[in-house]
Each structure stands twice: as structure tokens, then as C-alpha cells.
């Protein structure tokens, strides 16, 4: 069966967008906490893992309905995120960036270890959300699960924009990110905003984990791998700029898919990394962040 160039291109685009959607979602999580605390949360990948594993338990073992299990898993990981902030980040007396980052590394190990004890060492799978055949678009095909991934990313982005632009809490969080001292003077409880950023970041991580698990299966040790590419997307998009992260995540995924399809799959990660390095040489602040803006953080 021979197919045309356009069909192939479309197929690679589908593949790239699906890969990129996950990077984007992990990157948003990184940014959220970066904006409120100035640190990179090394436990971000673990949120993804916990979300995925919880979803597997709820749907495959307890046979709950998808929607209910989805909400439960997100709620569970959100609580984990809040506890993480309250128990490990909040009590730190003199929170320097380095100290907090090391704390997140410790927490990520703790999560990983607990997940291993609870879910065991093997990989867990769950069924695709819908049991429909692949859809055809101009000869190229896309799995329904990939549509779920892309659709949910879109919902997350829309919800994100609405939250930060239209709600008071969202605006308070932005104010804290731009200038924490000034925000506090204006009467915003900045510590609560930090907690909220952990909660939201954990929730988005969980969503990413839930939608990706039917495709890749989940095991306790996967966090670092998932976190890494998402971190790359966050950096290319301009650390702290979440819409930049979404664009960069999708771009990264598409570059990988195109280089895998047209050049060689052996080098697809290498090519994506080269492009990343190239971007950082030309624009050290990332694609969508100018170096001046790096100081002036914006969600």
C-alpha cells in the first residue's frame, strides 16, 4: 500500500501533536510552580505517574466509570500536591531556591518509593477511553485515544487561560508571580497562592498521566523520563511562560515525528535536542520569552 507525501506528512503531524501534547502538559505543571516559587519541581513527573497509576487502579481493579475515576484520580493527586507543599515546602524557614529544589528531589524519591510499594514494580495498563476504530483523515489515521489527548490538552489550556485572566484567585496568583512582595502588601496571601500552584500543577500532571496511560502503560519509575521532555519544552518555551510551553511542547513533538519519519528514527531524539540547543543559543530566554522578560515572570 503506497501513500502520498501529504498523507505521510499528515500522519507524522498527528504523531507529533500527540507526543507534544504530553510534553506541553508536563511543561505547564513545571511553569506553574516555577512562577510561584522560582523553583523547578523535580516531583512533577511523579504527579504524572501517580495520576496514571491511580486511574489504572480505579478503572481496571475497582471497575469505576471513566468519568468518576478520572475525577477521583485528579482529586487524589491534587491532595498529594497540597500535602507536598504544606508538609515540605511551606515549613521551610529560609526558603532559598537551592534548598527547595533539593526538597522536591527528596519528595520525588519518596513518591517513587511509595508508588513502588503500593502498585508494585511491573507496568500497568488500562483500556483506551473509547473502543472505536482509528479515524481516517485524507488517508492518514489517528487513534481515538490521541484525539482524547489533544482534546483534553485543549480543554486544559482554555481552562488555564480563563482561570488566570477571569477569576480573582487566578489574578492573585499572577500578581504573586510578578512581584510577591508587592502582592503581599496588597493583601494577597502569598503562601496560599504557593499552595494553590502546587495543587493546580499536581492536577494537570495527573490529567497528563491519566490520558497517556492507555497508550504507554504506567510504572512507578517512569516519572523522570516523563519529566525530562516536559522540562525541555518548558525551557524552550521560555521558563514561566505557559502558552510558550504549549507551543514549544507541540513543536518538539512535531520535530521529533518529522525527523523520525523523514530522516531516521535512530536520531529523532538527537535532532530534537539539537534544535533545542540551537534555540537556546539564539534565544537564551526561550522562544517566547525575551531575556528582559525572564525577570518579569508571567503565567
Amino acid at each position, binding site marked *: 500500500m503506497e501513500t502520498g507525501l501529504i498523507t505521510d506528512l499528515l*500522519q507524522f503531524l498527528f504523531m507529533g501533536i500527540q507526543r507534544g501534547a504530553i510534553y506541553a502538559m508536563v511543561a505547564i505543571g513545571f511553569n506553574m510552580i516555577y512562577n510561584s516559587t522560582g523553583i523547578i519541581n523535580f516531583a512533577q513527573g511523579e504527579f504524572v505517574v501517580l495520576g496514571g497509576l491511580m486511574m489504572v487502579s480505579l478503572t481496571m481493579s475497582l471497575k469505576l466509570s471513566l468519568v468518576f475515576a478520572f475525577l477521583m484520580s485528579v482529586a487524589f493527586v491534587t491532595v498529594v500536591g497540597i500535602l507536598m507543599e504544606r508538609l515540605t515546602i511551606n515549613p521551610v524557614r529560609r526558603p532559598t531556591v537551592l534548598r527547595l529544589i533539593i526538597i522536591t528531589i527528596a519528595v520525588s524519591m519518596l513518591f517513587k518509593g511509595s508508588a513502588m510499594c503500593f502498585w508494585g514494580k511491573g507496568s500497568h495498563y488500562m483500556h483506551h477511553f473509547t473502543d472505536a476504530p*482509528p479515524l481516517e483523515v485524507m488517508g492518514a489515521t489517528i487513534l481515538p485515544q490521541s484525539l482524547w489527548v489533544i482534546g483534553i490538552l485543549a480543554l486544559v489550556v482554555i481552562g488555564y487561560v480563563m482561570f488566570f485572566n477571569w477569576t480573582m484567585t487566578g489574578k492573585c496568583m499572577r500578581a504573586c508571580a510578578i512581584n510577591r512582595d508587592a502582592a503581599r502588601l496588597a493583601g494577597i496571601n502569598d503562601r496560599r497562592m504557593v499552595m494553590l500552584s502546587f495543587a493546580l500543577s499536581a492536577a494537570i500532571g495527573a490529567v497528563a498521566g491519566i490520558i497517556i496511560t492507555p497508550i504507554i502503560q504506567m510504572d512507578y*519509575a517512569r516519572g523522570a*523520563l516523563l519529566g525530562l521532555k516536559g522540562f525541555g519544552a518548558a525551557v524552550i518555551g521560555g521558563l514561566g511562560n505557559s502558552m510558550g510551553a504549549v507551543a514549544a511542547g507541540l513543536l518538539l513533538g512535531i520535530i521529533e515525528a518529522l525527523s523520525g519519519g523523514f530522516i531516521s528514527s535512530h536520531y529523532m531524539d538527537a535532532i530534537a535536542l539539537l534544535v533545542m540547543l540551537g534555540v537556546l543559543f539564539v534565544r537564551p530566554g526561550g522562544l517566547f520569552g525575551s531575556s528582559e522578560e525572564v525577570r518579569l515572570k508571567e503565567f
Partner: protein
Amino acid sequence: MFIVSFASILHAGEKEPYHIGCAFAITGKAAWLGEPERNTAVMIAEQINKAGGINGHELVLHIEDTQGSNTRAVNAIKKLIKKDNVCAVIGPSRSGTTLASIPVVQQAKVPMLSCAAAASITNPPEKREWVFKMGQNDSDAARRIYEHMQENGIEKVGVITGTTGFGDAGRTQLKNLKDEYGIEIVADETYAPGDTDMTAQLISIRKSGAQAVINWSIVPAQSIVPQNMDQLKMDIPLYQSHGFANIKYAESAGESAEGSIFPAGRIMAAKTVPADHPQKEVLISYKNAYESSYDDQVTTFGGHAYDAMHIIAKALEKVGDNPAKIKETIENMEFVGISGVFEFSENDHCGLDKTAFEMMTVKDGRFVVLDR
């Protein structure tokens, strides 16, 4: 680090116990290998001691966790030999850790029965006098796949492998053996363990005019390949490696994995092995014992520990716990085990050939032996 002793079970405690060392990757990245191995070893020691030990000697296991790391494996084996005075070592679980540990046992002159698979573990034989291997050779899996292709008139294949040590070794074997079987590799693609979609690679394979796909990997991502092939409506046969022999991978791939063909140890389809096969009895008894003792399914890896334990027990029964005599006995042993029918010799410390693999397929979500 713990010692499993069954003195309380055993009352014939008059004679000196026999000490066996185990070094498995019980935690860490290769925990899925080490855990069933540990469980199996403990289970068999219990069985032997309950039955009165070996000629009245109690069997004491010293179990160390290598965490899949080379340094820890070397230290663990040094400790087992020097401090615990074991007469033989079972493990390590991974090829890398085994290769790192070889100098230790070569120097200490204590037999080591590795649960890993790389051919270099027992080659060259003159530098591996004290090392035995329970795992089937990668090259034999490749041979079985190529043989099956030959029988079905397939000459051009597209290869897609995972970028892990396992996938890489398979890719090398497939390339090395292709000429011997008159197979042409028309496409050679890879994917990383974290990849979520392999359509780009599969399109390249489709374009190359391949008559079949070989998917060689041990990571869960391999389950995506059959799904993507379905998605792209590729109807050429899919062959997979023995790394696919994990029922979860088949369940995850669902419908799309049905009918894919792969070589695997017979334990993966113990029930469908013909009743007159020499391994049938051992397979069923191990499967039943393991699955009733632990809330887990049998794996090939646990099978390696089963074989190692029984081979050492047989040697102990015959010549006692002198390491040199144990080695000599194993070299002249024939043993019907889980991984195959072992026929050791001085120059063959693996003892298995390509018949250790059976061609299997997925039918109604289960692994079954492929009908010829």
C-alpha cells in the same frame, strides 16, 4: 540484605547446612527480573527443606539485593563468597551485572549460575570456567524467527527495536544472522522506551516493501507497535521477540496483538505445551506452585531461578558442597528445566540451544504454542 533460614521447619539439624548465595536485582530498575527470581528461590528452598533437606543437610539461602547495579552486584557476590562462605552463587539478574561479577567468581573459584541471557556470559569458555548461564541465547530467538520466516516464504523484513540494551542486542543478532537465512533487512528503525507513537517508523517500514515486521524490545512501549500497525492498516505479519512474553503487554495491545508471532520459553504457555513434551511436567508443577504461593503470574525469569536452584541441588546431592566438584558435576549434567532441556559440557556452560524457544502466538488474549 537478609538471610532466609528454615531451621525451625527442619529437625534434622545434626548435619552442617549447605549455604547457597543469591544475588538478584530485587529493587531498582530491573526489579521485575529480581523479584520473581527471589520468590522462586525462596519457594524452592522451602520445598527442599520441608522434604528433609539434601541428604539431611539443610539448605540455607543468603539473599543479596544488587539493585541492578554493577558495583553492588560485585560487592554482594564478594560478600556471599568471603563472609557467608557459599558453595555456589545464583544470579545476578542482568547481563551487565553478571559480566561485572565474572572476575570475582573466576578468582574465588566458586560456580555462579547467572539468570541473564547475553551470549558473552559464557563465551569464551576458557575465561568463563566458573560461570554458567540459565537464560536462553538471544541469537537462538533470532534464529527461530528467521526459521519461521523461511518456512513461510518471507524474505524482506522491516526491523523495529527499542533503544535499550535488550533491543540493541536483538538488532545486532538479527543483522548478524540474516545472511545465514537469506533474509534481507529492508528497514531498520528504533524507538525510545518513552515513545508514545511509532507510526513514523512504521510508515518507513511500509515504504520499504517489507513482507513482515520484527518488533524487538522488552519495554512496555512495544505494545504500541501492533496498535499502530492496525491503525495504519498494515496487514503484513508481525513478529516479536521473547521480550514480548509478558501477558500484560499482550493485554495492553488488545485485539491488535492477536496473531503476532514470537519465540518464548515454554513456561509462558505451559498449558498449551503438548502433553508428551519432556518439559510439560516441570512446567505445570512450577506454574502451579508459584502461582499458589504468590499473587503473581509465572515468568521466564523466575524460571531461571528454578533451574539454577534445582541444578545446584542435584549437584549437592551427588557431591556435597565442594565448589570445584559442584562445577564438575554441572558440566556433566543433563537437566530438564523450565527454560529448556539443559545439556552442559565443559565448553558449553549454557546448555541450551534454539529448541529452548517455542514459537508462540496470541489467541483470545492468551499466549498459546503456535500450531505447525
